[in-house]
C-alpha cells in the first residue's frame, strides 16, 4: 500500500503532464508526480532522498520552470496552436516505438532469473558518511558541474548588444 497508491498517482499525473496544452497546468501535474515519487522514496527506506525530492525537485527545479514560463509570457494563441498540433495523430508513431523499446527493456530486466533478496532501509547517516568519506571527489565534481552551469547560464542570459 505504501508503494502502489503513490505509484498509481505518479503514473497518472505524469501522463497528464505530458499531454497538457498549457505549460503551467502540466508543471502543476508534474509537481504532484514528484510528491508521489517522494512518498515512494520514503517507502523504499530512502528518507533523505525523499526530502531532497521535495526540496530540490519540487521546490527549486519546478519553481525555476514556472518563473521561466512566466517570463516567456505565453498567451492563449500559443496554447491553442499547441492544442491544434496535438489534435493531429502525432502520438501514434512515438507510442509504437516507445512500447517496443519498453517491452524489450522489460524483457531483458525482468525476464532473467534473479535471486530475491530482502533489501533494507539506508539511513541518511550512512549516505553522509560515504558521501563525505570515500566519495568526496563526487562532491567536488558536482560543485564543478554546478559552477559550469552557472557560468553558461550567465553567458547565455546576456542579450547581445545590437
Amino acid at each position: 500500500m505504501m508503494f502502489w497508491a503513490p505509484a498509481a498517482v505518479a503514473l497518472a499525473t505524469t501522463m497528464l503532464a505530458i499531454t497538457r496544452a498549457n505549460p503551467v497546468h502540466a508543471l502543476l501535474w508534474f509537481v504532484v508526480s514528484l510528491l508521489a515519487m517522494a512518498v515512494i522514496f520514503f517507502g523504499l527506506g530512502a528518507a533523505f532522498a525523499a526530502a531532497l525530492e521535495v526540496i530540490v525537485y519540487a521546490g527549486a527545479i519546478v519553481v525555476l520552470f514556472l518563473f521561466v514560463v512566466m517570463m516567456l509570457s505565453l498567451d492563449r494563441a500559443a496554447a491553442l496552436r499547441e492544442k491544434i498540433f496535438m489534435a493531429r495523430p502525432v502520438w501514434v508513431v512515438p507510442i509504437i516505438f516507445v512500447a517496443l523499446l519498453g517491452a524489450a527493456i522489460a524483457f531483458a530486466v525482468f525476464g532473467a532469473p534473479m535471486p530475491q533478496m530482502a533489501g533494507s532501509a539506508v539511513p541518511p547517516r550512512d549516505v553522509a558518511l560515504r558521501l563525505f568519506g570515500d566519495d568526496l571527489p563526487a562532491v567536488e565534481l558536482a560543485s564543478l558541474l554546478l559552477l559550469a552551469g552557472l557560468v553558461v547560464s550567465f553567458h547565455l542570459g546576456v542579450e547581445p548588444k545590437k
Partner: protein
Amino acid sequence: MTDWRSPAGLALALFMLGLLGLLARKNLVFVLMSVEIMLNAAGLLFIAAGMRWSTPDGQIMFIAVLNLAGAELAIGLALLLRLRGRLTTLDGDAAILLRDSS
C-alpha cells in the same frame, strides 16, 4: 520492505512516458519537462537498486542525478529564453537553421 521489481518497473514506465513526451511534443518547455521526467525515473531506479543491495551508493547517485538535472535545466531554460527572444515561438521545429535567417 517492497520487492525491488515493482519500483524498477515503475521507473521503466516513467522513463518511457518521458521518452514519449520527448518524441511527441513540439513545445520546447514540454521537451525539457520530459527530460526531467526521464532523469527522475533514473533516480528512482538508483534508489531502488540502493535498497535492493542495502548500500548508500544508490542515494549518492541520486544526488548526482539531482545535480545534473539542476545544471541541465538552468542551461536549457537560458537557451529557451534566448530562443524565444530570437524566434518569438517555442516550437522546436522553428530552430532548424544553424545560421541567421536574414
